[in-house]
C-alpha cells in the first residue's frame, strides 16, 4: 500500500522523469503551455495509424484467411486480405487428370456446396459433350442441390451467431444440419464431400427411404425457421449489430463482381436459377429475395428467405420424382471434349461458380479455371468494412459467408 502522501511525492517525480526521458518537440512544449492555435491542436489530436493482424488462425476468419487491418483507433481504415494459406494448385492439377476425375476437385473447393460444385462440373462436361439427361436425374440433382443450399445456410446462420457472441445458434444450426447430412450419408455415402453427381448422371440412385426422409426433414425444419428468426433475428442486439453495417450499394456490388446472396441483398435480383434455368428450376415456382439497403441485415434476411424458398422448391418436386435410370450416359475413363473453349456457370449457396474449360481435343483439359464465388466476393470486404469498427468487421466477414478453400483453390 502506498499512502496518499507518498503517492503525491512519487507522482511528480516519475512524471518529470518520463518527460525528461522522452524527446519533447517544440510543439509539445507549446501545447503544454497552451500556446497553440486550433489547427495545430487538431493535427496533434489525430491518433497514429497502426496495423492489426487478424488471422490466419482466428476463429472469425472461418479458416486460414489473414486480414491486415490499417486502423485509426477503433476505426478500420483499410482491409488488406492475404490469401494462399490453403492454396493447393487445383488448376495446375486439373491439367494432369482426365475429365471424369475433375468432379472430385469441385467438392474440395466450396465444401459446403459440394453437390452444387459436382453439378457445375458435370454439367460443364455434359454441355461440351452434348449429353441429354432424363428427368429423373435432373429432378434428383435439383432436390439435392436445394438440400445442400439449406444445410449451407444453416451452418452460416449458426456461425454468424457465434461470431456475434451468441453460442446457441451454433448448436441449433449444427443440430438441424445433421438431419440433412444423415439423409446425404444414406444416399451418397459421404457427409461432406459426396462426389455424388457425375458426368452423365448420378453415382448411385437415391436410397429407398430418401423421399420419406426428406419429407420428414421438411416437416421438422419448416417451423424451426420461424424459431430461428424468433431466437436470433428478433433479438435487438443482433439487429443493432447487423443493421446499417457493411453497406454495399448495387452499382459497386456489380463492379466488384459480387454474386449470390450478397448481390441480391444489394438489390440486384440476379439468380441464375431464374435467369438461365438449369435442372428443373424452370418447372418450379419460387421467388428471388432481394434486399434494399445492402447491409448485413439484408444479407441475413436474404439467406433466411432463401431457406424458405428452397424448402418450397423441394416440396414441389419431392412428391413426383420421375422414374428412369440414374445414369443415362456412362462415360468411359477417357472423355474427349471437342476442341474449343467452354464456360458454364451455376448458382451455389454463395454465388456463381463458373467453370472454364479450354480443350485441345485430348482426354485431359488443356486449361481448367474455377471461377469461385468466394474469391470474388471477398474483395468486396475492402469497401464494406472501410470506415467501420473492428467489431463490425467480424459481422461483415460472417455475412459474406466465406469458405477459405474456395478462395485459395
Amino acid at each position, binding site marked *: 500500500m502506498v499512502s496518499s502522501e507518498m503517492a503525491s511525492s512519487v507522482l511528480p517525480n516519475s512524471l518529470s522523469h518520463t518527460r525528461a526521458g522522452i524527446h519533447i518537440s517544440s510543439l509539445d512544449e507549446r501545447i503544454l503551455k497552451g500556446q497553440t492555435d486550433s489547427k495545430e491542436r487538431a493535427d496533434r489530436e489525430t491518433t497514429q495509424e497502426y496495423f492489426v493482424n487478424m488471422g490466419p488462425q482466428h476463429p472469425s476468419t472461418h479458416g486460414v484467411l489473414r486480414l491486415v487491418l490499417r486502423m485509426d483507433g477503433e476505426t478500420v481504415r483499410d482491409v488488406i486480405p492475404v490469401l494462399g494459406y490453403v*492454396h493447393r494448385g487445383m*488448376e495446375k492439377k486439373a491439367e494432369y487428370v482426365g475429365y471424369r476425375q475433375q468432379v472430385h476437385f469441385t467438392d474440395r473447393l466450396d465444401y459446403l456446396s459440394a453437390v452444387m460444385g459436382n453439378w457445375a462440373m458435370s454439367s460443364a462436361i455434359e454441355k461440351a459433350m452434348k449429353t441429354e439427361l432424363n428427368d429423373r436425374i435432373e429432378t434428383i440433382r435439383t432436390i439435392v442441390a436445394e438440400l445442400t443450399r439449406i444445410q449451407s445456410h444453416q451452418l452460416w446462420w449458426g456461425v454468424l451467431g457465434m461470431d456475434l457472441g451468441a453460442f446457441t445458434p451454433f448448436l441449433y444450426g449444427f443440430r438441424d444440419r445433421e438431419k440433412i447430412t444423415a439423409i446425404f450419408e444414406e444416399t451418397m455415402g459421404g457427409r461432406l464431400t459426396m462426389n455424388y453427381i457425375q458426368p452423365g448422371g448420378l453415382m448411385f440412385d437415391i436410397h429407398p427411404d430418401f423421399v420419406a426422409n426428406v419429407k420428414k426433414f421438411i416437416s421438422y425444419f419448416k417451423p424451426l425457421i420461424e424459431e430461428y428468426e424468433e431466437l436470433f433475428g428478433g433479438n435487438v442486439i443482433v439487429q443493432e449489430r447487423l443493421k446499417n453495417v457493411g453497406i454495399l450499394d448495387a452499382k459497386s456490388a456489380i463492379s466488384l463482381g459480387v454474386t449470390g446472396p450478397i448481390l441480391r441483398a444489394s438489390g440486384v435480383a440476379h439468380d441464375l436459377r431464374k435467369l438461365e434455368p438449369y435442372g428443373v428450376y424452370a418447372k418450379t415456382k419460387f421467388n428471388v429475395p432481394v434486399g434494399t439497403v445492402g447491409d448485413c441485415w439484408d444479407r441475413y434476411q436474404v439467406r433466411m428467405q432463401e431457406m424458405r424458398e428452397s424448402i418450397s422448391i423441394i416440396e414441389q418436386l419431392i412428391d413426383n420424382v420421375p422414374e428412369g435410370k440414374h445414369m443415362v450416359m456412362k462415360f468411359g475413363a477417357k472423355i474427349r471434349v471437342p476442341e474449343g473453349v467452354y464456360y458454364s456457370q451455376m448458382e451455389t449457396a454463395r454465388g456463381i461458380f463458373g467453370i472454364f474449360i*479450354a480443350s485441345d481435343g485430348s482426354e485431359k483439359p488443356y486449361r481448367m479455371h474455377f471461377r469461385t464465388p468466394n*474469391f470474388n466476393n471477398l*474483395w468486396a470486404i475492402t469497401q464494406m468494412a472501410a470506415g467501420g469498427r473492428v467489431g463490425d468487421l467480424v459481422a461483415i466477414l460472417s455475412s459474406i459467408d466465406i469458405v477459405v478453400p474456395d478462395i485459395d483453390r
Partner: protein
Amino acid sequence: MDSAELQVVVGALHSSLTFREKSDRLSVVVPSDQLLSVAMKLRDSEPLSFDMLCAHTAIDWLKDEKIELIYQLYSTKHGHHLMMSVYVSRTEAVAVPSLHTVWQIAQWQEREVYDLFGICYSGHPDLRRILLEDDWKGFPLLKDYKDDFMLERPW
C-alpha cells in the same frame, strides 16, 4: 440480345476486332493496344452494358508462343454474355493495360493472373502475388514451369 445480334454490335466497336470460332458463346479477340478503349465501350454503350467482369484468366498456348488472356463479361441489365480474349506474346514483354478502372474486380483477378502466369498489367495499383508466397520463383500455370517438387508420372 442473341449471339448473332451481339456479334454485329460488338463488331462495330472497332475495325480490328475478330471473332473466334470453337467457342460455346460469342468470343471476341481484341488487340492489346485497343483493350482499354474497347472495354470502356463494352461497359458504357447502352445496348451492350457489360457491367460485370465474371472471371478473368489466361491460357498458355506454348506451341504458338502466346498467352491468351480471357475476360468473361456479363450484363446484369440485358443478361447477355461475352468472352473477350487478348493475345500477348510469350517471349516479349508486352504491357497489357489493367482494367480496374473499368471493372473494380479486375484489380483482384489480375493479381491472380500475374501470380500464376506472370502477366504484367500497366497501371495496376497493387500488382503483388496473391496465392503464392512473395518469394516464389516462376509462374506455375505456365506449361513449361518446373520446380523441385514436381514429380514425373511413372506411367
